[in-house]
């Protein structure tokens, strides 16, 4: 077979989501040639699914008065449970306001401040003043001191991705969609590009570049129930991990969003609670104030999710008509039909489409659901991946480490464009000074290796394991053993199951012929990498004997700053069936570890 086409550019961006495209713009504007690869057309990337909004301290709305980057910084650090990189959080919070305004300049139709007195669902009266009218407004979100979540209805990701993509079109940056990177080409020191499989034809392609950017989004689909798109399989991180020299950082830090809607687990945005929605139990009692008197439904996501599961465990869950798993209710009826069908229109439509419910008059079933991958390809604050020169990572695929152990809602979209800009500049600078070298033998070897894998999967040389069965078993193991509440023994069992599945994944044989752009082959090629990723999550969680942010160990329920103010680095050595874990210290130069002001430390359990 051998590679069908070879493409050469200065910069190769793997991914076409917001992080990817924003960094590509920066590189192209520096005069570099850029190629973007993506599983899907850019406008179908998962970023378009983001609903609620983007955090930036513009301070325009009445409830945003007095906001500034410092307060945003403090909220972010608290949200992260002091797990984030504070240098990164500083840079980010200072840059993000101009990013929002640049998006406005490019065409995002941000909702604006309208002057006048308003009564909030809480009963509070506020006034938006004339001097701010027409500036970009904001809504409330979880874990924040000020309203700073900028939005366009509840289709923020959609409008932002569409607008950023218009700039990519305008600059003429080529996008090769339906082109999946399946391995990185490197010599253990430098990354030279990637081998990719064409999802239209099945052909292998080679992409060579001075700089390669991993911007492939999250890995939610290692879990059975996730709010993520079905393409979020973490393949970018997996191919970096497979190099043996690039570590994934903090993979045990997985966010569970309080309001996934069963049975499909599509997200009901946090904006619903931000705008004044409640969580109710089987007695239609609003229970969050019992646990979290200060922030109520708007404590950080890790806290609200735990409280919900705790409340269900205490016997207050609602029986589901779909499964044995109980749920709770999201109530936004009191916001009024006008509000629901204007500002929360997307989720109202989703509730109608998938559950036949009208949230203006019906309660919506919700349950905490896997939502965000805080961990990822570990980089320094300029976005350079650890371990390989010429390799960068940004967005959800990266551990730049803005989010530590819990990401604040609205900080992720904001991260994508801000990192795209900041890292984009650094990567342009690096690339302008780099020279391209072509080691044909090395490239050929990498292509051969992939061809060999494909041949063996088709012939069944290594075995006849069924890829779909292995995937389903992995997703169930993650649900059963590596979820919101974790314990040592359960994690141990989980790791053992995943190891067994990993060994089986090396013996997959196709049911079909594997010809052309065969979907079974695509899944089979990803499967060992997905299991390695899952093992990084499970094993990292097992070894971290403390609770921090979204990582909650029932057997170690306290945060332990003496021993665990550190970041996990997971490496995968050739031939291993477990990651090798290493740790690096987390510095707190601006804000020493303290109390978050919400969560188990301050509020007691339900009496």
């Amino acid at each position, binding site marked *: 077979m051998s590679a069908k086409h070879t493409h050469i550019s200065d910069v190769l961006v793997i991914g076409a989501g917001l992080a990817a495209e924003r960094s590509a713009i920066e590189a192209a504007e520096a005069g570099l040639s850029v190629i973007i690869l993506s599983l899907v057309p850019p406008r*179908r990337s998962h970023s378009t*699914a983001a609903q609620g909004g983007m955090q930036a301290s513009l301070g325009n709305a009445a409830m945003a008065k007095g906001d500034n980057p410092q307060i945003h910084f403090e909220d972010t650090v608290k949200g992260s449970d002091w797990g984030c990189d504070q240098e990164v959080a500083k840079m980010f919070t200072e840059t993000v306001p101009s990013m929002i305004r640049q998006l406005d300049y490019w065409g995002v*139709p941000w909702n604006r401040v309208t002057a006048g007195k308003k009564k909030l669902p809480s009963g509070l009266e506020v006034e938006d003043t004339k001097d701010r009218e027409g500036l970009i407004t904001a809504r409330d979100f979880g874990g924040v001191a000020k309203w700073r979540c900028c939005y366009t209805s509840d289709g923020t990701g959609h409008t932002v991705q569409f607008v950023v993509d218009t700039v990519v*079109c305008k600059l003429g940056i080529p996008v090769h*969609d339906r082109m999946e990177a399946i391995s990185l080409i490197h010599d253990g020191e430098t990354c030279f590009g990637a081998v990719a499989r064409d999802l239209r034809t099945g052909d292998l392609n080679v992409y060579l570049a001075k700089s390669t950017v991993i911007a492939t989004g999250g890995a939610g689909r290692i879990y059975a129930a996730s709010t993520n798109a*079905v393409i979020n399989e973490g393949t970018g991180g997996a191919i970096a991990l497979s190099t043996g020299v690039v570590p994934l950082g903090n993979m045990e830090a997985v966010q569970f969003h309080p309001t996934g809607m069963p049975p499909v687990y599509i997200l009901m945005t946090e904006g619903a609670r931000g705008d004044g929605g409640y969580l109710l139990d089987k007695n239609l009692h609003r229970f969050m104030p019992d646990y979290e008197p200060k922030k109520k439904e708007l404590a950080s996501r890790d806290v609200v999710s735990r409280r919900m599961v705790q409340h269900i465990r205490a016997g207050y869950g609602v029986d589901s008509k779909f499964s044995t798993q109980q749920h709770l209710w999201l109530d936004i009826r009191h916001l009024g039909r006008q509000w629901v069908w204007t500002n929360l229109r997307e989720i109202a439509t989703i509730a109608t489409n998938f559950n036949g419910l009208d949230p203006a008059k019906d309660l919506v079933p919700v349950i905490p659901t896997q939502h965000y991958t805080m961990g990822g390809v570990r980089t320094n604050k300029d976005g350079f991946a650890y371990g390989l020169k010429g390799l960068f990572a940004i967005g959800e695929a990266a551990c730049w480490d803005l989010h530590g152990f819990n990401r604040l809602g609205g900080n992720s979209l904001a991260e994508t464009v801000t990192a795209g800009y900041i890292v984009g500049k650094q990567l342009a600078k690096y690339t302008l000074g780099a020279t391209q070298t072509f080691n044909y033998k090395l490239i050929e070897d990498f292509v051969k290796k992939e061809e060999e894998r494909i041949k063996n999967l088709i012939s069944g040389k290594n075995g006849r394991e069924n890829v779909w069965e292995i995937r389903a078993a992995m997703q169930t193991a993650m649900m059963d053993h590596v979820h919101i509440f974790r314990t040592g023994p359960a994690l141990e069992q989980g790791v053992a199951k995943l190891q067994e599945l990993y060994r089986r994944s090396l013996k997959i044989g196709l049911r079909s012929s594997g010809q*052309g752009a065969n*979907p079974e082959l695509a899944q089979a090629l990803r499967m060992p990498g997905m299991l390695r990723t899952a093992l990084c999550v499970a094993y990292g969680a097992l070894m971290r004997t403390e609770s921090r942010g979204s990582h909650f160990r029932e057997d170690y329920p306290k945060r332990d700053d003496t021993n665990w103010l550190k970041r996990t680095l997971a490496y995968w050595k050739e031939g291993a069936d477990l990651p090798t874990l290493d740790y690096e210290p987390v510095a707190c130069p601006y804000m020493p570890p303290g109390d978050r002001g919400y969560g188990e430390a301050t509020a007691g359990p339900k009496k």
Partner: protein
Amino acid sequence: MGRQLTISCFRYNPNIPGDKPRMQDYKLEEYEGMTLFVALNEIREKLDPTLMFDFVCRAAICGSCAMLINGRPRLACKTMTRTLPSRFTVMPLPVFKLIGDLSVDTGTWFRNLQIRTESWIHTNKKFDFNALEVRMENKTAEAIYEPERCIECGCCVAACVTANIREDFLGATGINRVARFILDPRDERSNAEYFEVVGNEDGAFGCVGIMACADLCPMEIPLQENLAFVRRKMAAAGLKLQFPGVKIS
């Protein structure tokens, strides 16, 4: 026990030498809340791993999964099987290039559309990192958001009589896209400049008015109103080009 469903699928993979277009039946048992997303994945995982189709968000917001379901262009992910008879057909969208089975290349089609209509903000202003944003009425922002909601699924194009016979027709989605920029005060293009793009038979004047698109839009975008809006603007611009002195509001 649920109904026994028979899903009759179009099959053809142009990349496999010797493959021929055909319909193939798959039988499965229906259960509560089953969508076509669930059903087609079940077919792939249990019955036929070669079946090609596209899902991304499975939430009816990314536009990946449009196909002809019993002859009607719809998003498969939000189509509940209970709304269909126990035997139904699924076919790929027409107009777009076939990739294989139910998968079509909407991506390339829409990319070309963006480029042909220059769908980006045209402005001579420079972005100033230190300046406040330009003020805008919230009403205006909401008006822009309405057409901006298009998810580029291609349902309107597949249903369009003109698009099925004229390869270069922009379709309702294209005209809607242009409406979005006309509504946006940040775009400095004049009506005459838009006229260059859509003031012809491949644009606003190609539509023969059957308006199958309007009922089919899964986002319920008012395609008909947007077409009328663009036509009015273009008719005015057209007149102005012909009779430069004429004053038209």
